[in-house]
């Protein structure tokens, strides 16, 4: 470590307790629904999670489960299982980990995901989600439905707000196609459950989702305050709330408490560390096996007021526009032509950033291919340099934590 980089006292927001309660309630719901014999579905990020609660479905998320395996050390064995089956090395870590857990459940961290009755693929981020859904459905011999969305371009939506994801417009042709695709999903779920969708419940769930989404948006905005009030170690898990639990009461309760904590911090001018020296942007799927890296940086005085991957997971839900809200969820710069990066970067100006640490997730084309254009735009628009670290989200063998720390230290030296 460089001589003048003293480790500081670290003072996180305290979201750990809230996450624990959130997952406890999530698992209790699962258990209760399983007892009632409700169908189990596997879903992916950017899926309209509200429908899980409208239809009382048991939900499992291969991405979340893979991250859990990565954090607990079983993902490398599971990845090796998938490679031995002939799957490519440079595929999504979430896929490789999940397929390993299906084929060799004894190698996976318990509790494993409940066996699905159906799988929903969604092209709201990547085609890999559709491919994963296809493979998982084949392995489990269950039906699969794919919700399709466009890869958004300026031509189709104009400019968009990088936080709320509200676009200037949505070209009618594409909007109608998305709505038809979502209506197809509702038909599919009605077929799976054998029940007509309750309109009242639909409205109720979207009201909860709206309130939750507003709180989540406030949290990511407040993170940009000076000094940075919280740690990315705890903010990064917001993706699970936004992706998978939006529409539930427990997500709302979590968001309310989380908002209160960060609001009070900002009001009192308290930061995650006493002496904030660098304000950094981060992007890329978080390396779930090495999350202590954030704490390490923060203790060095390098805080993260913005995490674009977390920001991409959050969008504004409007209960009176449920279908538009479901479509809006997919309007983010990781599912759009690169012109949209400028909209996102515009919103970062108030964060007063000094640099960026970007994670190139080996095997994830969506996040990795955008890294260099993003770095170029950050340099061009904000005048800040970027450090790119190769960091597959579930395979620590490719990313040495010590090497990453050295790279970061050297990078921080250049920011002086």
């Amino acid at each position, binding site marked *: 470590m460089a001589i003048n980089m003293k480790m500081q006292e670290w003072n996180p927001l305290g979201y750990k307790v809230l996450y624990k309660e959130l997952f406890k309630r999530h698992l209790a719901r699962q258990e209760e629904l399983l007892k009632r014999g409700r169908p189990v579905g596997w879903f992916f990020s950017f899926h309209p999670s509200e429908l899980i609660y409208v239809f009382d479905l048991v939900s499992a998320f291969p991405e979340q489960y893979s991250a859990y395996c990565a954090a607990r050390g079983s993902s490398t064995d599971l990845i090796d299982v998938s490679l031995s*089956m*002939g*799957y*490519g*090395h*440079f*595929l999504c870590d979430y896929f490789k980990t999940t397929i390993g857990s299906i084929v060799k459940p004894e190698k996976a961290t318990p509790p494993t995901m409940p066996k699905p009755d159906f799988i929903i*693929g969604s*092209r709201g981020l*990547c*085609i*890999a989600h*559709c*491919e994963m859904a*296809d*493979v998982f*459905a*084949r392995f489990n011999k269950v*039906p*699969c*439905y*794919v919700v*399709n969305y*466009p*890869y958004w*371009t300026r031509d189709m939506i104009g400019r968009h707000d990088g936080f709320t994801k509200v676009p200037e417009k949505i070209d009618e*042709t*594409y909007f109608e*196609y998305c709505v*038809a*695709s979502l209506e*197809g999903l509702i038909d599919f779920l009605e077929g799976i459950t054998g029940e007509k969708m309750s309109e009242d419940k639909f409205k109720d769930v979207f009201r909860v989702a709206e309130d939750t989404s507003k709180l989540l948006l406030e949290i990511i905005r407040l993170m940009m305050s000076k000094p940075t009030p919280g740690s990315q170690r705890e903010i990064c898990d917001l993706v699970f709330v936004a992706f998978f639990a939006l529409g539930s009461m427990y997500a709302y309760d979590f968001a309310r408490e989380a908002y209160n904590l960060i609001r009070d911090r900002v009001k009192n001018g308290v930061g995650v560390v006493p002496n904030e020296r660098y304000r950094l942007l981060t992007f890329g799927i978080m390396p779930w096996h090495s999350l202590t890296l954030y704490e390490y940086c923060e203790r060095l005085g390098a805080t993260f007021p913005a995490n674009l991957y977390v920001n991409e997971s959050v969008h504004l839900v409007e209960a009176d526009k449920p279908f538009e809200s479901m479509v809006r969820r997919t309007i983010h710069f990781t599912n759009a*032509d*690169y012109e949209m990066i400028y909209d996102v970067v515009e919103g970062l100006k108030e964060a007063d950033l000094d640099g960026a640490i970007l994670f*190139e997730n*080996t*095997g994830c*084309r*969506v996040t*990795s*291919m*955008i*890294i*260099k*254009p993003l770095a170029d735009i950050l340099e061009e628009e904000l005048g800040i340099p970027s450090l790119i670290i190769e960091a597959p989200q579930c395979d620590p063998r490719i990313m040495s934590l010590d090497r990453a720390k050295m790279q970061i230290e050297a990078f921080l030296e250049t920011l002086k």
Partner: protein
Amino acid sequence: MRSKRISNNAKHNKRKNTMPDHLYSLFLTKSKILEYKKAGKRIIGTLCNGVPEEIIHSLGAMPTRLLGLSKTTENADLKLPRWLCAYARRILEDGLRGYLNYLDGVVGITSDDTKMRLYSTYTFYVKNNFSYIIQMSYVRSENSLKFFSMELERFAHKLSNHLLCNFNLDRLKESIKIYNKFRLLCKEVCGLRVIDTPKICGADWMKIMLGSVSTLKEDFNKIVEDELASLKDSEGVKDYKLRVHISGADFYDVELLQLIESLGAIIVSDDLCTATGYFSGFVNEGEEPFEDLAERYLSCSACTFTAHPNVSLIKDRIGFIKKEVERSKADAIIILRDKGCEIYGWQCSSIMEELQDFPVLLLDIDTPISLEQYKTRIEAFIESYGD
């Protein structure tokens, strides 16, 4: 084993037909493209087989499937992850080096994650006057078909506005006819590969297909028509040890195919996006050309980006491979898997499982290709399963 095993060394056509080399030179030099350009034609590069070239053709422009010529990718590697497929990195490299300056526009399609972002990366770093990404549907439902048809119509109008020409349905129908004729001729040439004494080897077949992306299809059709009779009359390949099917995606390195055949195999069929996958599947010549195009391009079995509802994406691809293998009476399969290929990364396991009755050699391909590295394994494979 169904192959004819006559002697140890594969000796290909004695009276070598010059068409493959001629067409391959058009691919390498782009001479025909530059000639069209000089004559005032606009050149539109496409980033995937999924882009319906007929639309571009009907607007008086020349569509050309982009396949990079750069052997190394040092510039592209600064803009893209190094583990990405060579196909994407080589196109970007060509663009960054200025090799593609003859292009007037680029058209992509959302057929896979790499190609989708390649479109954005390419247009971000290599500016073109025109660019468009066609939105693909992933399910062959009625709704998707209707949407895709509308999307193709939208693309046609955007391009016609850019080219300052009026879109004309009759011209589109005419272009569809020209492309169907191209497909018919390719099918006929392909048919000459599967007979006992193949009239054309795999490397030459690839050269022909590469030539087809470097000429207007009407010109290509004429070249092939003129040479077809002579090709049919040629002696054919008699001496080979093993009939091989080649499986892969956007592979187009002729040298590796030449190596395989120089070691005693004959490549009698393939499912490559750059060869058989490029031409397979006719467009219905009906009164609703956009719907006909949508139908054909959503059901390209050589690719996997769409499936019928509740039908696995891989099923059609495996069906296509099996059909080709059966037709060609191949004894073995060589898989050329680009280490960064997304499509083959997903499919390889299932394909190998489905083809377990066949001897399969899996080669992980990286660029630049080291022929020497593959030689030993190919040789051993041919020795093990050939006569």
